[in-house]
Structures are given as structure tokens and as C-alpha cells.
């Protein structure tokens, strides 16, 4: 277990390519430090906005056959309060990426500037269950380009655009982010979904519908990453349903430069170390380097070709 899996990602140096995804345990500096201590190569904060938001009423999460639905509704204390948490998070010794959201370019810029010191910014263009934010802006290529350019304009730090799978054509949105100057795209956010309690007819989430995460969405994420890798020139960060090193390897073969773990990290906060060392053993036993498997699914040959 000695193989080097450090990577350079949009100018950041990461000890390994396994990151904490936005919104999972990332609501305080302490919990971000904990993920760093558990072996995450970098950590992404909960999405932060301009003003304190309590989020949607409970229930905000529910379990499905093979995953979770959530409609947290972007609860956050605003960048003013969160700036302190960011400082604490940075004690963790790994890059801290600030996930930010806003209704327009001005808000995005305000939050980015308010969280100066972040090692990178991840633009939440994709949360499927917050009126006026997230996917409400992230389904429009023009807006995506504009918002990305706005944040690029106000910071030297790398800017990642996080995409929603709930569009007809995710590569179109990815290309828009690239045009706006994004240093990387992150795919995917949760898939819109809903569940209903059959004893009462009530939707199980307080917000009625929400976003699906976990193993159910892995095939959807793999396809998105595969397509984005073909279409874009900037790196693709893969997220969606990763719960093991095998899943991470699959995502990397689809073309991911690095992966993020969400739901599964809640279940097992030690997962980062396990996944990273699983990748190392896998590479070792195949005598491969990380770069040998990145995008491998695009290179295989067919008898019919």
C-alpha cells in the first residue's frame, strides 16, 4: 500500500482523490476537520448563502429502497457566521472547498468574497429542492455561464461548478460552466424524487419532494461523468452513490479526476481512508497508476469497431 494517489486538481494538491461531498456533515468547522482526519483528500462545506436559513421543515430526510431522499432546503447560518467555521475547518490540513449558492451573480459574489480563504469554491447550481436557488438556476446554460464567470471574476481560487442531473442535456450545462471559466465540474447533485406514506397519503418529506442520493443513483452519475469527460476539457469530479473503493474506481474509469462521497460518509465517517486504501490496493495488484485507469472506459475496444 505505497502507491502514490496524490493528485493535482485545479491547482490544488490533494493527498488522495476521495473528497467529502457538499452538505454531508459539513455544517461546522469541527465536522469538516473530522472528515479530514478520517482521510478525506479535501472537504467541501455545506452550501452557504447570504442570510441565515433554517431550511425546510422536518422530515428533511427519508430512506428509500436503496438510498435516501433529502430536502434539507439549504439550511445555513450565512457566510458571516460561517467564515469562522471555515477557519476552524482549515486546521484539518486538507483543502477546504466552500460550497456557495445564491439567487443571482451578486449573491454568489457576495458569498464568495465573504468566505475568502477557501481553497476553492464549488457553485451549487444543482440543489433540486430550494425555490430560486440551486437547480432553479443550474438548468439554464446562460445563467450557469454568467454565474460561473461572476465568481471567477472575484477570486483567484479555483471555481468548480456543481451540476444537476435533472436536465435533458447535462453536457450542455457543463460546457456552459466551462465557457464561464469553471476550473472543474462536479457531477452529480441529487436526482429529484419523492416518496409517499401509504398509510396517510402524506409525502414523506416536509417539502413534499426532494433529492435522491445513495446507491440508487450511481448508474446515473456514472453516465453523467462519462458524457462530461467526453465533452469537456476541464476535469470532472464524480459524485453520486459511491460507497466503496469499487464504486470510486468505477467513477474514475468513467472519467472522474477525483470523487466525492456524500450519503455513504454519513453512514461511515471513516469511509475516506477505506476507499483511498482500497484504490491503492487495487492499483497495486494490477500494477497500475491512478492515471492508467482515469477514463479507461473510453478507451476499450470492440470487435465490431
Amino acid at each position: 500500500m505505497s502507491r502514490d494517489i496524490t493528485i493535482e486538481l485545479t491547482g490544488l494538491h490533494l493527498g488522495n482523490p476521495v473528497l467529502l461531498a457538499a452538505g454531508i456533515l459539513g455544517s461546522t468547522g469541527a465536522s469538516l476537520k473530522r472528515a479530514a482526519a478520517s482521510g478525506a483528500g479535501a472537504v467541501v462545506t455545506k452550501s452557504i448563502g447570504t442570510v441565515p436559513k433554517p431550511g425546510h421543515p422536518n422530515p428533511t430526510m427519508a430512506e428509500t429502497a436503496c438510498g435516501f431522499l433529502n430536502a434539507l432546503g439549504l439550511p445555513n447560518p450565512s457566510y458571516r457566521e460561517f467564515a469562522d467555521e471555515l477557519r476552524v475547518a482549515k486546521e484539518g490540513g486538507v483543502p477546504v472547498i466552500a460550497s456557495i449558492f445564491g439567487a443571482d451573480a451578486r449573491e454568489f459574489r457576495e458569498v464568495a468574497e465573504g468566505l475568502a480563504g477557501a481553497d476553492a469554491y464549488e457553485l451549487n447550481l444543482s440543489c433540486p429542492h430550494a425555490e430560486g436557488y440551486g437547480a432553479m438556476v443550474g438548468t439554464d446554460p446562460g445563467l450557469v455561464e454568467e454565474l460561473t464567470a461572476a465568481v471567477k471574476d472575484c477570486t483567484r481560487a479555483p471555481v468548480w461548478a456543481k451540476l444537476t442531473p435533472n436536465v435533458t442535456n447535462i453536457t450542455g450545462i457543463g460546457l456552459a460552466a466551462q465557457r464561464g471559466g469553471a476550473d472543474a465540474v462536479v457531477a452529480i447533485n441529487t436526482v429529484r424524487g419523492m416518496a409517499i406514506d401509504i398509510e396517510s397519503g402524506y409525502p414523506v418529506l416536509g417539502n413534499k419532494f426532494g433529492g435522491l442520493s445513495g446507491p440508487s443513483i450511481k448508474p446515473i452519475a456514472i453516465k453523467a461523468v462519462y458524457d462530461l469527460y467526453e465533452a469537456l476539457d476541464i476535469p470532472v469530479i464524480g459524485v453520486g452513490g459511491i460507497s466503496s473503493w469499487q464504486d470510486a474506481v468505477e467513477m474514475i474509469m468513467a472519467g472522474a479526476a477525483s470523487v466525492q462521497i456524500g450519503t455513504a460518509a454519513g453512514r461511515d465517517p471513516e469511509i475516506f481512508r477505506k476507499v483511498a486504501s482500497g484504490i491503492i490496493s487495487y492499483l497495486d495488484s494490477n500494477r497500475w497508476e491512478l492515471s492508467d485507469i482515469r477514463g479507461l472506459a473510453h478507451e476499450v475496444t470492440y470487435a465490431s469497431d
Partner: protein
Amino acid sequence: MPVIEKVIDETPYIRTFVLDRTFRANPGQYVMVWVRGVDEVPMSLSYENAITVQKVGDATSAMFGLGKGDRLGVRGPYGNGFTLTGRSILVIAGGVGAAPLASLAELAHSSGISVTTLLGARTKTELLFAERFRQAGELRIATDDGSFGHAGFVTQLLERTDLSDFDGIYTCGPEQMMARILNIVKDSMLDRIQLSLHRYIKCGFGICGACCIDPEGLRVCADGPVFTGIRLANSEFGKYRRNECGMKVHVQ
């Protein structure tokens, strides 16, 4: 989803809802209770098939409107619960904090562990589960208004108790009460005291991060709600907690 089989008035503001389902759980574990159309909130299991609820706000008031035959959404049990050790334990319960502790006392008693309970409430009629604690061992009572037992706080009862008699201390109640207890017990006892925390719980799955406490980032919903004193000694506990937005608010 469970049906309410019986509602027991424990005190004017506290009711027990007996469900038609039994949960295999450690004392101290909790369930997420969904009052449809209103809210979903954490509640300790006060029996293997019941929760005991204090009316404090929207969801709990809505529950007080439910009766036999009504349904509640219940998922869980979640969290760790208390770990029983030793031959003699001290239980300190304040208010509705008695809910998870009564079954702990009963389990201890039936396992041959000697149990002493310090039970506190605002007033006599608000004392919860006094009879269950009495059956399980020795019971000392304090009420703020002196209407029963010691007039004052349970922490004053604790100050008069020789802690060297006990292998473990178990407590649940208002955070200020538990913080004071943590100050009273000597440092040497910190690894033998277990405290059950209340924090804002959103998911209960350990995923959303709403309940994390500083500085270790421990999740009350999944790593807790029960922690040893050592884990809490240099933490936010007793100082601040976070509201729904994740903003710090001082523990009053």
C-alpha cells in the same frame, strides 16, 4: 406505521404514547416521530413500545391531540444508548429526561445492579416515573418549589451524595443541570459518567451534520445521544448549541 394503543397522562404536561410495536433498543436510544403535516422530532424510547412526551411546541402539542387508534410515523431506533457497567449506579433525571433513564434503571435492577436515583422536577405533579425508579432501587426526589422531597435542584442532592459508592453515573435532563453535574463530579469520574444530549436533530441518520458538536464534530444523532463526561469535558456542551440554521446559540 405504529398505531397508538394507549395514552397515559403522566403529569399535566407529559404523556406516554404506547404503540402497537416493540422496538429492540438500548435504554437511551431514540426514535424519530413524524406527526404528519407538522414536524418530525426525536423522542427517547421510555418503554420498549412507548415514548413519553413533554408538550413544548408545535409537534408535541399536535401529539397531545392524538389518541388511541391514531398513527404516528416512527423510524429508528437510532443512536447508541447507555452502556451499563459495574455493580452500583447513580441515575440523575431532570424533567422529561427521566424518559430514557427509567428503563435503564429497570434493566440495571433486573441485572442485579444496585440503583440509586436522584429525580428532579419543577413541582410535585411534574415528577416523571417516580414509581418506576422506586421499584428499581433507592429514590431521592427534589422539586424546585419544594412541593415534594428536597426543595431545590437535584444537583444539590448530588452534592450531598458520596460518589465513591457508584461505578457509574447516568444522567439526562436540561443541559444546564447536566453541565452543573459535570462540574460537581471529580475529574476522575469523567469516564464513568454518561450524559444524554439534546441537540437539534434533522436526519437522525448521521448524514446531514445538523447535530454535530464542537470540537470533535461528534454527531449527537448517531455517535450519541449518550456521551461520556470525558468526551464532553472540553466541548461546546453547557456553553452553546446550534439552531436550525446552524448558528450558535448560548445555552441559557
